[in-house]
């Protein structure tokens, strides 16, 4: 059985309820780094208690200054499950790809004349185990020339993905009930890019599972290269 995930949603009860109705297995809520405080954690805990979904919480960093981006990533690394950076310009994309603490690079192709990733960044993504997120919300809310360019940029990125093998996921970026799409619809919409049905399915299932595995590794790791494999029973130690 395939499990589906929507890995970029707003912290909204209605959205989570709708995802449950569509039989998603899990989701990740992203809070804005500029407005992140302790109340966000409380909101996450409250929503997590009232749902059967596997919920994760992450932080979305939209920064145009590379130094500030590094600072934000360092600050939030141990506080949240996932760190997602919004792709902006070549400089920001390069810094984000170079940071091993970053988990997801969100739409690196935005506001550009190209897909935002080249062969150098592609190998950095593989090296640092960073996933690229395709925003279906953006695809739905653009029209004509902008949508055509967006599809072209994603197709360009998919070519690099085929060659270098970095991980790609798709998400709805749902902010309200009207933005949520069922797994079937997400697969259909993903097929507007040059991907076959099988890979479109992987974008919201298998590829997201890889990100979830990384979260577990991240939680278990003590320092770089050292990880708690299992808890040792206290009695055996005594």
């Amino acid at each position, binding site marked *: 059985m395939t499990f589906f995930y929507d890995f970029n949603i707003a912290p909204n009860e209605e959205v989570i309820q709708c995802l449950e109705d569509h039989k998603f297995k899990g989701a990740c809520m992203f809070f804005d780094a500029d407005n992140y405080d302790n109340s966000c954690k409380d909101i996450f805990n409250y929503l997590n208690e009232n749902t059967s979904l596997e919920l994760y919480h992450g932080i979305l960093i939209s920064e145009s200054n590379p130094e500030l981006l590094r600072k934000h990533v360092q600050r939030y690394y141990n506080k949240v499950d996932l760190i997602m950076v919004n792709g902006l310009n070549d400089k920001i994309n390069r810094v984000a790809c170079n940071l091993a603490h970053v988990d997801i690079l969100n739409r690196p192709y935005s506001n550009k004349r190209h897909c935002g990733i080249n062969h150098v960044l592609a190998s950095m993504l593989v090296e640092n185990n960073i996933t690229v997120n395709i925003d279906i919300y953006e*695809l*739905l*809310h653009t*029209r*004509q020339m902008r*949508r055509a360019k967006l599809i072209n940029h994603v197709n360009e990125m998919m070519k690099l993905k085929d060659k270098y093998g970095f991980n790609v996921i798709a998400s709805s970026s749902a902010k*309200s*009930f*009207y*933005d*949520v*799409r*069922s797994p*079937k*619809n997400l697969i*259909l*919409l993903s*097929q*507007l890019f040059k991907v076959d049905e099988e890979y479109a399915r992987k974008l919201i299932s298998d590829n997201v599972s890889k990100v979830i595995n990384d979260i577990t590794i991240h939680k278990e790791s003590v320092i770089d290269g050292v990880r708690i494999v299992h808890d040792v029973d206290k009695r055996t130690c005594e």
Partner: protein
Amino acid sequence: MKLKILPPTLREKKRYIAFYVYSEHEITKNDFTYHMWNKLIGLYGEVTSSDVNLWLVSYKRVSNQDRITYKGILKCQRGYEKETLTMLASLTNIKENKLVVQSCGTSGTIKSLNRKYDLL
């Protein structure tokens, strides 16, 4: 003189799609049809849209406490179900009115679709 009806072998093969529309405000049948066609032409262009041959068979309001809901049946040409379903999934708004369309299923006859989803 009235034209004779085409024999079944020469008629175009069709598929019926059942769907639900959830919306913030009321949407008329004409508005919905117009925006469906607009979206289809925007996504696939005029040539492919002509092959899809879209037709809204039924469109009715359903009682729902949370939001305005409609149920309907859409006819398209066989082999173009994927294009039609993608078009339905990509509908986001009609002017300022937000909406989402959830397709339920596809069938070769209205009768079997109605038996499954009770849409008429």
